[in-house]
């Protein structure tokens, strides 16, 4: 017993060193593909979810979002409210927005697009819209006759939105109509955040709104807040609530209604694909090990005939499967991080929810690696048990 335990290690070491290198490489490659298959879709879903969440935060809600309390249409004294919010520990910046209930007209086309009046400097601190100008330039605080349009409103060669203006460009004029007010604005810039909901929006300055509709002065319909440290949204919400601002305060997650259900769907699909992927990996590994063992039936019979205990022979195949799968996981991890992640970082999937790259959830990644290894061990053990229980003579004589 003391000495026999080394037999499986002895046999497996010789098998790996002197066996067919091509077969070894192919089996390990196959294991790595089985592993990548398990982690790729999850990482892609993580990427889509993270990307769309980032898009929501960076182009729309900020980290914390404030709306008027129920029964109120506006946040009054928005300027001083923003000041008070910015004084809160952990808050980096805040931007008040007034949703103008306007109809927009360009040439002979009309549309009801969400138009917000903002303080351009504050908005620049909270969202990335200012950095996403694809034509013209961002708003200045003193602009009173300028507007910036999202790409889905302005239109363009690859914009499929039928309600877009299709040919609107910088320098063209659009007319906003609301509350029996009509005002012509010049398109100062066109932005493309790649987040379709934001790209359906237009922005003017608060100064412009004050000029054409003074009754909306210092009013806002929402305030978006950027915080110092991601993940502290709930803490900041709690601090802001303590200030008793008389407003409804939410972390961004509460505003990501559609994305929440998309995320739930992704999790369900991911679990399902994980199960299917796990089964495919199990069957593949089982077939590979089973063929390997079947080819060595006579050798197994000989080993039994010369007195090598069956459990030692089974251990050889368990060790072999473990080796294959661990190497497969290591190779798969290498391919994943050295090839796939950088590739998709350079060439992300372009989705209406935002550009998706591969994002790894490490505990999940480790769990899937463990699944592959355990599946391989079980897939190696089952045929090994089966073969070592066969009549020895049948194995030796190849019956």
């Amino acid at each position, binding site marked *: 017993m003391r*000495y026999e335990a080394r037999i499986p290690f002895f046999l497996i070491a010789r098998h790996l*060193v002197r066996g067919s290198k091509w077969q070894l490489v192919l089996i390990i490659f196959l294991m790595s593909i089985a592993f990548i298959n398990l982690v790729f879709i999850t990482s892609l879903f993580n990427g889509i979810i993270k990307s769309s969440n980032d898009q929501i935060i960076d182009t729309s809600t900020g980290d914390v979002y404030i709306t008027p309390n129920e029964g109120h249409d506006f946040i009054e004294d928005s300027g001083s409210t923003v000041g008070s919010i910015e004084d809160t520990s952990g808050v980096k910046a805040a931007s008040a927005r007034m949703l103008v209930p306007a109809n927009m007209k360009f040439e002979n086309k009309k549309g009801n697009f969400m138009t917000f009046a903002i303080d351009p400097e504050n908005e620049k601190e909270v969202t990335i819209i200012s950095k996403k100008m694809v034509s013209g330039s961002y708003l200045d605080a003193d602009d009173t006759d300028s507007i910036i349009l999202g790409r889905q409103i302005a239109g363009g060669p690859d914009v499929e939105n039928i309600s877009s203006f299709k040919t609107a460009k910088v320098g063209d004029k659009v007319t906003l109509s609301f509350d029996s007010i009509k005002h012509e604005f010049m398109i100062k810039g066109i932005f493309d955040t790649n987040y379709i909901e934001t790209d359906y929006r237009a922005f003017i300055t608060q100064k412009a709104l004050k000029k054409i509709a003074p009754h909306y002065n210092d009013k806002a319909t929402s305030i978006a807040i950027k915080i110092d440290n991601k993940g502290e949204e709930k803490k900041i919400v709690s601090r802001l609530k303590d200030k008793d601002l008389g407003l409804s305060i939410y972390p961004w997650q509460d505003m990501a209604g559609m994305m929440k259900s998309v995320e739930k769907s992704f999790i369900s699909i991911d679990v399902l694909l994980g199960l299917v992927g796990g089964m495919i990996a199990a069957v593949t590994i089982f077939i590979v090990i089973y063929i390997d063992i079947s080819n060595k039936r006579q*050798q197994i019979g*000989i*080993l*039994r005939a*010369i007195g*090598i*205990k069956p459990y030692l022979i089974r251990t050889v195949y368990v060790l072999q499967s473990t080796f294959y799968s661990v190497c497969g996981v290591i190779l798969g991890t290498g391919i994943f991080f050295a090839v796939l992640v950088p590739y998709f970082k350079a060439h992300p999937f372009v989705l209406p929810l935002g550009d998706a790259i591969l994002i790894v959830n490490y505990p999940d990644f480790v769990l899937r690696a463990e699944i592959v290894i355990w599946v391989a061990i079980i897939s190696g053990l089952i045929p090994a048990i089966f073969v070592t229980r066969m009549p020895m*003579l049948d194995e030796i004589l190849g019956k």
Partner: protein
Amino acid sequence: MGEVKVRALNGVTLTIDEGDFFIITGRNGSGKSTLLHQLGLLDRPDRGMITLQNKNVLKISEKQRSALRLRELGYIFQEYALVAELTALENVMLPAMMLEPSRVCRPRAKDSLEKVGLKDKVNNLPRQLSGGEQQKVAIARALINNPSVLFADEPTANLDSIAAKEILGVFKALNEHDNHTIVMITHEQDETHYANRLINLADGRIS
């Protein structure tokens, strides 16, 4: 069509004494391989009794039979039956590694290979050896744990006449000089003169 039951051995009673060179002959299907498999504990008979050193080996567990095969019985197959990925030395060492540390079994395996005339081929893989040399490695492996009995199932069947003669010479030397008990099956009539005891099987009976 159901399975047809064939009585491969019928009323075979024999005693093999220590130091015998016992040869079993017979036509194909006479039951000689079946007898050797039973004696070598590779198979179990439906009925009967096999006694090794006064112990009925049919009443012991598979684990105990495995231990007996390891310590007391050496088996040489017709088709060499070496592990392809192990060198001659490693093939020979393998059964000894079940019982002894490497520092003991390695020199013993070298001695065993020297005994069969393969001193210079210890590091060769089976594919680098001729059929006769592979069979000698199999003999060395069967000898490594100093078994009470060596069983050889037509060990020269796949060899040319020169290699066959060499193998039989090895058996003869093991029997005469080291007093190894050898039970061997052969088809070849001219090999029977090596035996000090000989039986011929026909239709599962000693004829």
